[in-house]
């Protein structure tokens, strides 16, 4: 399956079938910091992914400065 990753943007090929949670493990990614999108639909960790699937692993973390710490 084709797996699209970010930061930096790249596409890699992973052999299926494989459960989404095993894909996370293989890529050493933390589930809490990512979403898995197949086509344009979200999938849960126990979903089976196949060779013909287009997968995006989207990071969800953002932020730089401690925004609006106070009124000052």
């Amino acid at each position: 399956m084709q797996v699209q990753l970010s930061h930096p943007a790249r596409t890699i090929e992973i052999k299926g079938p494989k459960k989404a949670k095993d894909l996370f493990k293989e890529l050493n990614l933390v589930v809490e910091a990512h979403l898995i999108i197949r086509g344009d639909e979200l999938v849960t960790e126990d979903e089976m992914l196949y060779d013909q699937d287009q997968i995006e692993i989207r990071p969800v973390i953002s932020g730089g400065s401690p925004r609006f710490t106070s009124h000052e």
Partner: protein
Amino acid sequence: MNCTKCKIRAVIDLPRHNAAFCKGCFNIYAHDQVSRAIKSEKMFGKDDRILVAVSGGKDSLALWDILLKMGYKADALYVNLGIGGYSDVSHAKVVNFSETVAAPHGAVLHVHTVEQEAGAGIKELAMLIHRPTCSTCGTIKRYQFNRVALAHKYDVMATGHNLDDEAARLLGNVLRWQEEYLDKQSPSLPASLDGFAKKVKPLFRLSERELAAYSVLNRIDYIVEECPMAKGARTLLYKEVLNRLETESPGTKQAFYCGFLDKQRKPEASSTTMAEKDQAMLHPCSVCQQPTTADVCSYCKMMARAKTHSV
């Protein structure tokens, strides 16, 4: 995995709630969390005019979307920081959302462009004044949001800070014992007499992953790329650490931040020291005379049990 509520195929699992939801039930969950935040912190009512600070990212656009769908009067302000292509893309995402989603609700988008006023983008400004870019950015955003909120007589200003943002900042403040910041880390800061608008964070009960999921499920076109200026920011490190803890022990971030808020709400604990408490509770063990809170100390009880079993 099926939806915990309606049993059809789930699209997201939420380990911290031991639940999984389909799109419909997840939207109900997200709106309910925001509603609980607004009510518990007395943020605003249906008649109040709200100014949402939008950046083109998932959190702020999701916040604007949720507030409009819940029937609140919410306009927005976008500050174009002049970070080259990144600002161009984020600006376009905000305008697109404003025209396609917000305008049909009667909502208005205000825009402030840093380059037009200052003659330079955020990066150049930060270099001129020898300050970190993120710090300069924070100062400009806070100033402009407050200015617009007061100029247009908004009752309250809302930002898209989520559970991860608040937990990460709390961790940073606790690690350095910055107590003056701890006092101010409430999701609702009242308006002040000296000209600061009321500020609220209605998303503090939703995690970053949940807000990204909300945006994907509701086809909100947001900027996925990280701000190039935020690379290496300490906040990102704190979030990474907290997410590792959350994966091993779901609910950690919520327990950390919401537990802090609960403690803040409770009246000051008595000033009794641990030594004073000990003196009030301790007395000699009836067997060995060592101090204990019970009649027989736990050591003597354990040894008595061991002797009984060894016989």
